[in-house]
């Protein structure tokens, strides 16, 4: 199902509750009564087309179908991606961690085996932080720079060098896959840790992991399939013009 402007925001959430953090990051908090998406976006000063694109990209995984890249604003995409990073750091990663800790405290299985899980996630966290930091400190600023140069139609010498040496495609190639480890962790919890008397706390960890993975998949898709192609086009135009 596609989310449209006349739909009530509440109905969109009832359709798929995983949209909750997505609309939060786009600037909408709960308590919106019976307002439609259009009314709500108007009220909050949110670009409705952008809103609909992000939400539909999250639901329907085929971005090429849901997004028209020509009229997407790079600044908006970057703001959204950063807000998503923030949400991972402040909410989703701590949520997984808390649940792993709860699992360890109350488990009837050998402590050592669960410590493996904790260490594994600890290691993952470091990789995850490094990934986000690299994007925020190098990639996003570069992206904004290219976008700005493209807007004013002027290419400074140092940006030209950056485009020649490290175009956005080189980021795309190296864009590490930060979902693999989550995938492994899920299988370890589902299949390979010994059977426990009660799985509730283990389920809790898994629920948090599935949620994080789903959200992360959407985030990486926007980076790879929206940000990269948009910037790649701009780079080529800038190179041609000089």
């Amino acid at each position, binding site marked *: 199902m596609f989310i449209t402007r006349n739909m009530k925001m509440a109905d969109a959430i009832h359709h798929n509750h995983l949209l909750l953090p997505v609309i939060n990051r786009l600037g909408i908090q709960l308590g919106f009564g019976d307002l439609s998406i259009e009314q709500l976006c108007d009220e909050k000063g949110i670009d409705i087309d952008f809103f609909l694109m992000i939400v539909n990209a999250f639901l329907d995984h085929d971005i090429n179908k849901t997004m028209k890249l020509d009229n997407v604003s790079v600044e908006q995409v970057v703001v959204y991606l950063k807000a998503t990073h923030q949400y991972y750091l402040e909410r989703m990663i701590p949520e997984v961690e808390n649940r792993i800790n709860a699992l360890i405290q109350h488990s009837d299985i050998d402590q*050592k*085996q669960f410590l*493996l*899980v904790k260490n*594994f996630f600890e*290691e993952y966290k470091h990789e995850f932080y490094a990934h986000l930091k690299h994007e925020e400190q190098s990639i996003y600023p570069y992206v904004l720079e290219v976008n700005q140069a493209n807007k004013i139609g002027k290419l400074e010498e140092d940006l030209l060098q950056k485009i020649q040496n490290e175009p956005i495609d080189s980021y795309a190639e190296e864009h590490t896959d930060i979902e*693999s*480890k989550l*995938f*492994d*962790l899920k*299988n*370890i919890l589902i*299949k*390979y*840790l*010994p059977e426990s008397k009660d799985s509730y706390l283990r389920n809790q960890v898994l629920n948090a992991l599935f949620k994080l993975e789903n959200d992360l998949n959407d985030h990486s898709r926007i980076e790879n399939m929206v940000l990269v192609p948009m910037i790649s086009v701009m780079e080529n135009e800038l190179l041609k013009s000089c």
Partner: protein
Amino acid sequence: MIILALPTYVVRKGLESIFRELCTQKKIHSTANIQELNQYIKDSETRLVYAHSSFIPDLQTNYHRKDSCKIVRVIDEKPKELLEEAFQSDILYLNDDEQSIIKNIKRNIALTEKANEGSSEESELSEREKDIVREIALGKTNKEIADNLFISAHTVITHRKNITKKLGIKTVSGLTIYAILNKLIQMEET
């Protein structure tokens, strides 16, 4: 990925819902557009295509693809003289009875799933694969593993692929935990 290409809306949607009932694979796309269909056929993820007979003349299947993609022709009416004919998995007759249609679809889905996952039934590691997991868990590189086990680096890579398929674990740290939990190595060794 499975593609259903049929010009009639109701038929397309109907077939799609039968597919969704019969198979767990999430990626099923339906289209009424020949260009889109040709685009999908080029995609290496596409394993199975049901194309209506009216699309067949414009189908572009002559480019090079390493992996196989099966194309099933969808025909509106089963000719009367064929009524008693033996089962064919590469043709689907829309006016056929429920049983035959389900049989055709199930057969073809099973084919694509085999092509996808190799032997998805088998998940037990072989002794050789266990050796390799042990080495990976001890932090060895492909080259070192090859030398230690007297096999080629290429063979090591093939084994690693199969291990990942069987266990659903891709990373070195993940395999290390697997190795410890299954006592392939001692925790102290890591």
